């Protein structure tokens, strides 16, 4: 595929045009990456921090509050979990239960957890449950 990169002046808005015959997985991945912001605004004790998407391990909704988990720190997000899901890069993040969205790249291992559920062990040692209802989506993501 030919790739053309053009320099534009400071005032112009950056844009990407794909001239394609049909959508492919690579193009879909590129669009997902371009659509999602590189970092999100999260909070600790009301203080705002930018958090790069690749640093997020998982996001969880608890009692209508959304928490974002990095390797060691836990942040609050002002967004609802479904709003956060819209922003997160769909190449990397996947809903694995009603309450949890996980960064697939941070999963180290998956093991059966009974009742047709699975347990995902993350790179930071934490474990999250993959609900039975979300297993088909996981299989589809992994091309199974």
């Amino acid at each position: 595929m030919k790739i053309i990169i053009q320099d534009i002046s400071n005032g112009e808005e950056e844009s990407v045009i794909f001239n394609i015959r049909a959508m492919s997985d690579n193009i879909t991945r590129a669009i997902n990456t371009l659509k999602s912001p590189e970092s999100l605004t999260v909070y600790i004790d009301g203080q705002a921090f930018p958090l790069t998407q690749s640093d997020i391990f998982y996001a969880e909704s608890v009692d209508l509050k959304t928490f974002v988990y990095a390797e060691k720190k836990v942040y609050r997000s002002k967004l609802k979990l479904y709003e956060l899901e819209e922003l997160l890069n769909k190449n990397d993040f996947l809903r694995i239960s009603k309450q949890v969205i996980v960064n697939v790249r941070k999963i180290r291992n998956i093991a059966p957890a009974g009742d047709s559920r699975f347990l995902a062990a993350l790179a930071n040692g934490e474990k999250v449950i993959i609900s039975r209802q979300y297993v088909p989506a996981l299989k589809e993501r992994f091309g199974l």
Partner: protein
Amino acid sequence: MNVKEALKFMSVLFCVVTTAELFFVSLLNMIFASGALFTPLEMLGLVAVALASVLPTFIYVIKIKKTRRSLILRDVVHFLLTLGTVVAALVTFGWVNTENALVTLFMFIFIYAGAHIVQEIRGRSLADKLNEKLNAIHDGDKK
């Protein structure tokens, strides 16, 4: 499992159990009864036993806290309920009497355990495939 999922699963299980029953009873008829035909009552019995074996699946609709202990307890309750309903159906249609009760019990345990083992193997197999894909993703990240 919600009601819709339970009904879907029960429908599939009912068809599988009925087919398996038909297959084995036909096989036994061919071997031991010189190809005897099913009576309508026996056909009804086959359907009733299949129905009795799938009805207890409804306990999976009840929401419980998913700890290891409660999941095991629920499986034990499901086993006992299924044993009760299946034996009741078998006794009703005269397929079980005091002479073959022990054999029937062992057969039931064998089939029930077999189904659980198959489910466990499928779960592990899927986990292995998912882990293979995960490793491929991690290998790609390292490059």
